[in-house]
């Protein structure tokens, strides 16, 4: 156990011994905690401890976390055998996590800024058991080379072995031939402002500033820049102040979104490896690369947030077993293509799907009853909100002007309903490579989900009280990939059953009153 992991990395294939994470993590843990406690530290340094104990507690907390991080390094070991990956961890409560290598579906290698400076990378191994508690294996962190080698071994072992049998070649992992399916073009950066990711950045910065102010107990009024801003805003009319604030916010968000796009997707490349995997790598400062076993890619989702749709942009998310869809698809590592022109999106989707026809197949609309439901729901929601505002007006909480302005929610609701209905659609496409269930829905984020026949496990047909009255149903395809279930909402019951029967022949047939066709 005294050897450094990087030295014994050569033996990954045969190594039966337990290895530690990179010792450089002993630097990362303290630095990360220092950064997290930065506002408190600044407050202590600048103001001193005279103004309260709060900052000192933060510093003490950070110290404890550093200690735990260091302990974690000493207690965490892992080993990779041809059969399985194992991680042993825990100080008091020792645990061993084991993942058989033939259950590995995805390998995610990412490096935050600090990891990158130190040549480290975090490895997350995804399995198909997404129904169980989140027990994927995470190795935080290995040296970059070891991480890359581990990835290659985990995902390319079996296909290589198969080829070796067929060609009677030696089982030497040859340099992996790869085909580039897509890479970032500078022109795509113009979609950056329309992703609105800058809102998050602005929020984080605002939270940091707020915390700094509250921990150091500085009166914002006495702080130069704030005073200037407050003074200016209170000297102009309210309308002007609001419009100035909005313009400033928009400019900041646009700049932050663009910078965010460049940072996140710089060097973006989507490649296909002969070993049967897709590989996405990207990132300017923190890098991320995700490898997906192509056999387990159950489909893709083309998602178009409203603003992006307005400028004819879209992005692609993978639907695959072993990758959880986290908050913000980028975070979950499922992103196959960053916001890019529609034509490019469709080309890439066709490239990665076994049934390319699914990308362009015409969608059946859901009919007048589905349209009525969209309007009922959107207008109903608007009416409730408007009614609430008018109650506030009646009880003298808000003025009449506010109540009248709230009426604008009704036309907005109607527009939303019209767009939501227009976007509803479904189809089953078939080509020699396979069949696909296609569904499209949504307005603020329009999604076209293409789920392959192989990925569909079963069906749920859901009818709410109101759906039953109008003869509609929601057809839910259950799957082990992505969100675990994909819905076709408000389709006529008979049509839902036809779609189910065509997408997965045979399963529903015995349960129908009259056989189809």
């Amino acid at each position, binding site marked *: 156990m005294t050897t450094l992991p990087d030295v014994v990395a050569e033996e990954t294939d045969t190594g039966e011994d337990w290895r530690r994470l990179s010792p450089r993590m002993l630097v990362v843990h303290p630095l990360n905690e220092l950064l997290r406690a930065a506002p408190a530290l600044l407050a202590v340094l600048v103001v001193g401890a005279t103004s309260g104990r709060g900052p000192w507690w933060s510093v003490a907390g950070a110290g404890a976390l550093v200690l735990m991080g260091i302990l974690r390094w000493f207690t965490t070991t892992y080993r990779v055998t041809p059969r399985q990956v194992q991680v042993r961890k825990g100080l008091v409560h020792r645990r061993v996590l084991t993942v058989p290598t033939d259950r590995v579906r995805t390998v995610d290698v990412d490096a935050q800024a600090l990891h990158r400076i130190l040549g480290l990378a975090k490895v997350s191994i995804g399995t198909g058991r997404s129904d169980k508690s989140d027990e994927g294996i995470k190795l935080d962190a290995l040296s970059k080379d070891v991480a890359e080698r581990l990835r290659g071994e985990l995902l390319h072992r079996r296909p290589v072995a198969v080829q070796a049998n067929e060609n009677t070649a030696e089982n030497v992992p040859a340099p992996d031939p790869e085909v580039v399916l897509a890479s970032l073009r500078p022109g795509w950066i113009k979609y950056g402002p329309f992703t609105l990711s800058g809102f998050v950045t602005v929020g984080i910065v605002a939270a940091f500033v707020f915390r700094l102010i509250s921990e150091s107990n500085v009166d914002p009024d006495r702080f130069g820049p704030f005073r200037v801003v407050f003074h200016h805003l209170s000297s102009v009319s309210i309308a002007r102040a609001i419009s100035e604030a909005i313009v400033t916010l928009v400019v900041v968000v646009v700049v932050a979104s663009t910078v965010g796009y460049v940072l996140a997707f710089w060097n973006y490349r989507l490649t296909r490896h002969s070993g049967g995997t897709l590989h996405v790598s990207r990132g300017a400062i923190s890098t991320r690369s995700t490898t997906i076993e192509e056999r387990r890619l159950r489909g893709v989702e083309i998602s178009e947030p409203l603003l992006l749709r307005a400028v004819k942009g879209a992005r692609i998310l993978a639907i695959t077993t072993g990758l959880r869809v986290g908050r913000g698809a980028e975070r979950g590592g499922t992103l196959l293509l960053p916001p890019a022109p529609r034509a490019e999106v469709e080309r890439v989707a066709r490239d990665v799907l076994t049934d390319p026809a699914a990308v362009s197949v015409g969608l059946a609309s859901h009919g007048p009853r589905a349209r009525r439901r969209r309007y009922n729901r959107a207008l109903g929601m608007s009416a409730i909100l408007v009614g609430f505002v008018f109650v506030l007006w009646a009880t003298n909480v808000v003025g009449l002007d506010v109540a009248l302005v709230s009426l604008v929610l009704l036309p907005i609701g109607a527009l939303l309903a019209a767009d939501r209905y227009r976007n509803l659609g479904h189809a089953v496409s078939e080509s020699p490579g396979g069949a696909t269930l296609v569904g499209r829905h949504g307005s603020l984020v329009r999604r076209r989900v293409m789920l392959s026949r192989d990925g569909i*496990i*079963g069906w749920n047909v859901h009818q709410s009280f109101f759906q039953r009255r109008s003869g509609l149903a929601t057809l839910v395809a259950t799957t082990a990939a992505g969100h675990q279930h994909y819905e076709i909402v408000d389709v006529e019951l*008979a049509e839902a059953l036809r779609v189910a029967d065509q997408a997965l022949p045979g399963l529903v047939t015995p*349960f129908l009153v009259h056989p189809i066709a």
Partner: protein
Amino acid sequence: MGFPTNSTRAGTGEAVELRLPRNKVSPRAKAYWFVRALIGWIVLFAAELVWFLTGDDANAGLHVTGLVVTAVVAAAHLVIMPRWRFAVHRWEITPDAVYTRSGWIDQEWRIAPVSRIQTVDSERGVLQRLFRLSDLTVTTASSAGALKIHGLDVEVAQRAADELTGNAVASEGDAT
């Protein structure tokens, strides 16, 4: 597949419908649902009563109204819910698939192929034991795809579980 679906909407399509799953759940489930709901209502009613008796008398009218409304809603729920639910809950197991219908106001049909079944659990709570009932849960690799059959007779549930595990174990792969 001799019908056009890709580009045209289906016509009237009244003919295509799901038939009911063959089996009803145990009739004792009605009593079980009744007792379970009754316990919930009694707890609520008791809480309201305690609030009424310990609070000041200024809002006595309001308290009494609340108690009456609770009693009426509870009575309606207790009379309607078990029967309605019993009428809706149905299940069926074929050599190829498991088929259930559940819910009462919202209803849901679920179909899962036996070849994709991962686990079959039968569960019995304390209250269910009194009624000799059991819940059967059939899970697949999708976390959204579990089929639950509530209120089965214990022996029926056991037989169903045995039958399913016998069929399912033979299936290949990890069913994802």
